[in-house]
């Protein structure tokens, strides 16, 4: 399998949601662009030079005039990619935690028709430098998802995933903030979309751990999800 999708595969789009990532986004895009010609960066109302940093690379840049949240930014990028004729949409974190060389592996099940959704899993792959507390919170998240969403996955909050065009048209992210990952799983199950999990590598650094979600945020996510079930 060719790891570089640029060889005639221009219907794969990578969506990167970025908020105050001016310092790290450049490195992420530099690594990402050789693997995919269609990248859309959604600057989610950053206060820094995230958009300018993105514009130095051959990518599309969309800018939220206010900070709406990662879920909202991803949906914006997905809408844009669909409008540009994307057949496969990959969501990818802007902080450099993901390995762009693995995009081809994540896309492959969707491309081959084996699944409509391919979900990256750090627990099937590798999580380099993951703090123990984060491991525990993510495992509790998996348990919660199995009970609450009734979907058997090994990693619930992994931002590395691929959606077929049909799946992207059916899934609509309405939770603007971090609960969107669970909402996507909810919708995968509700829409009966065939999915597979793909091993991926996540690299934690001090900066990504510091900026990432706190453990308390997981309680906020649970509350948002529960309220979301009551209030539509």
């Amino acid at each position: 399998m060719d790891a570089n999708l640029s060889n005639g595969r221009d219907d794969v789009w990578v969506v990167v949601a970025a908020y105050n990532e001016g310092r790290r986004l450049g490195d992420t895009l530099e690594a990402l662009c050789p693997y995919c010609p269609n990248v859309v960066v959604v600057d989610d109302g950053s206060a820094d030079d995230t958009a300018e940093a993105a514009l130095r690379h051959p990518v599309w840049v969309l800018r939220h005039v206010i900070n709406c949240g990662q879920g909202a930014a991803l949906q914006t990028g997905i809408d844009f990619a669909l409008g540009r004729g994307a057949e496969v949409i990959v969501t990818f974190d802007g902080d450099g935690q993901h390995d762009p060389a693995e995009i081809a592996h994540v896309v492959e099940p969707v491309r081959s028709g084996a699944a409509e959704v391919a979900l990256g899993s750090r627990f099937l792959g590798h999580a380099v430098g993951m703090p123990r507390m984060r491991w525990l919170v993510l495992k509790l998240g998996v348990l919660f998802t199995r009970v609450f969403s009734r979907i058997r996955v090994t990693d619930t909050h992994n931002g590395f995933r691929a959606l077929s065009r049909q799946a992207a048209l059916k899934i609509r992210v309405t939770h603007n903030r971090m609960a969107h990952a669970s909402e996507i799983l909810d919708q995968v199950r509700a829409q009966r979309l065939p999915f597979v999990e793909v091993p991926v590598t996540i690299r934690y650094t001090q900066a990504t751990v510091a900026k990432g979600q706190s453990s308390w945020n997981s309680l906020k996510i649970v509350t948002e999800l529960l309220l979301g079930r009551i209030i539509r």
Partner: protein
Amino acid sequence: MTLFQGIALTFLGILLLWEVYWFLRGWVLRGPWVVRCLVWVGAACAIAFPEVAQDLALALGITRGADLILYVFALGFLGVSFYFYSRFVRLQRQLTEMVRHVAIREARQGGTP
């Protein structure tokens, strides 16, 4: 009539008159207006005739009229909280759609590094 009853009933009376004024000018949404008026009238009745709340509480199996009012407030608070939360969520979604629309319209393409 106690001093508290006098002050509270005067205040509620002014509120009711205020509601009537806006109703006559035709600047109200009928549903919320009716709910507000019922709340003011209900509060006035509970203050003016405390024995009514007491009788109602006994009829409902609650010992004290004050407890009945507390329960009504607690339920009302929950209802209002859910109402405003759902309004907030709806507004947030509409705002997001607007922000999204602008972002897609104003998409820019970056250059080569």
